[in-house]
């Protein structure tokens, strides 16, 4: 394991109770400060991998380290921020409460959490909706709130599971700009997406997953070259067909 790895996976295997093998002997290092993409078709194991890192599923075998800490430790959990693919907001809470309670779950002191929540609402243009409950928000606003919640406790590793799925072009550009800024400030980003141009535009390195196994890992130009393709889409298609 590299001493600077934000995320290190060794022999990671996940077999669900129904026998489905979602991840098989996966090994991967994501360097501190990287903008790292995970690409693969539905069922490739992207969401399972993210769930394993965030302690949302039970790992069958293998090790996961987050900045050198075992992923199950409280210290490791504090370092991770997760925006899931599905909008999983607490229906009883309004925007501000969602952020404040999340801050509390992550051990933030109340005054600090209030300050940070105000900052997040400003950054994601949620201030006018501060006292609106999550189910009453538009799809775009919910997506912003998911991202704001993931960043609320200032994690060093931010995991974004298809953050721009189903959002309009303007919001997509806004989210790209914010994620880029976050990365420039030193945050490690792990992004899964189905949009190949998104991965090519944002990610320094991309891992291709299929059937729970790592097929390839390189920069977008590196993948194009390795698969003798003109575009990332071409490299992706060849990798998946191989």
């Amino acid at each position, binding site marked *: 394991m590299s001493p600077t790895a934000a995320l290190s996976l060794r022999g990671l295997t996940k077999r*669900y*109770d129904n026998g489905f093998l979602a991840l098989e002997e996966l090994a991967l290092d994501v360097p501190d400060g990287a903008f790292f993409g995970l690409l693969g078709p539905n069922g490739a194991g992207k969401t399972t991998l993210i769930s394993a890192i*965030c*302690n*949302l*599923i*039970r790992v069958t075998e293998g090790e996961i380290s987050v900045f050198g800490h075992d992923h199950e430790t*409280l*210290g490791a*959990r*504090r370092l*991770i921020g*997760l925006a*899931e693919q*599905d909008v*999983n*907001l*607490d*229906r*009883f*809470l309004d925007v501000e*409460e969602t952020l404040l*309670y*999340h*801050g*509390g*779950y*992550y*051990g*933030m*002191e109340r005054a600090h959490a209030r300050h940070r929540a105000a900052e997040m609402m400003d950054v994601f243009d949620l201030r006018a909706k501060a006292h609106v409950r999550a189910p009453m928000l538009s799809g775009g606003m919910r997506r912003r709130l998911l991202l704001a*919640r993931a960043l609320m406790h200032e994690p060093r590793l931010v995991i974004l599971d298809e953050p721009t799925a189903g959002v309009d072009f303007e919001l997509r550009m806004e989210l790209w700009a914010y994620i880029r800024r976050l990365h420039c400030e030193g945050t490690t980003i792990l992004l899964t997406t189905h949009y190949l141009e998104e991965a090519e535009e944002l990610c320094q390195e991309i891992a291709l997953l299929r059937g729970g196994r790592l097929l390839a890992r390189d920069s977008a130009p590196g993948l194009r070259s390795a698969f003798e393709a003109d575009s990332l889409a071409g490299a992706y298609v060849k990798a998946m067909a191989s």
Partner: protein
Amino acid sequence: MTELVARRRGLLALSRREAHRVLKLWTQTVAAPILSSFLFILVFGLSLGGRIKHIDGIDYDVFIVPGLITMAMIQATYANNSASVFQARFDRYLNDVLAAPMRPWEINLALSIGGVVRALLIGAGLLACALAVVDVPIQHPLALTAAVALALVLFSSFGVIVGIYASSWDHTAFVTNIVILPLSFLGGVFYSVDTLPSPWHEISHANPIFYLLNAVRYGFLGTSDVSVGLSLAVSGVLAAAMVAWSSWLFRTGHRLKP
């Protein structure tokens, strides 16, 4: 103290969230159960009480109050926690909690708090309403405190467990309607089990709610169908079993984490 609070911020925040949910929906979570139980006191106690004069030397309208308070509290704590946990799983916002830096016992305890807060508000509110129409004494406050504490621990943990195992809203409602409500009625809310003929008298002793109800009744009225020591012991064993079961679920992630 400050350091202890700092170390337990996650526990405190999740507990606050659960209590917040109860208070936000107070008409549904607190006022409605108080009203329905108070109607029982008015209809059964004051109306039917004219026909049934005394049980164990106690006026009927007074006799039924401890049982109704117990029934309202255990139903509320169970229903609250099973619904809150199931909703959190169903909408998947429980993931925000499961991913957070909290220990399994902290999550378990915090998710139990909502039901406890709700039950205490209902118990206090119903007692206040009852005192307005009948004179209910508190003969043994320590026994009453112990009995209420065990009832809350038992049914708040049971609610969390059912919320974890349930795969539809029907499952949580099924337990209320088919298990808790009948056992409460048959546990002697409206009558003394001592008045039942054999074998119903003996069968009633297999009902766990019978023991809880009698422990609470002893705390209020100083009378019980069974020794208070046995009532508290049975309730204590059941409460410990439920806590152990819910703790195991959170520690292992069984049903919570695929």
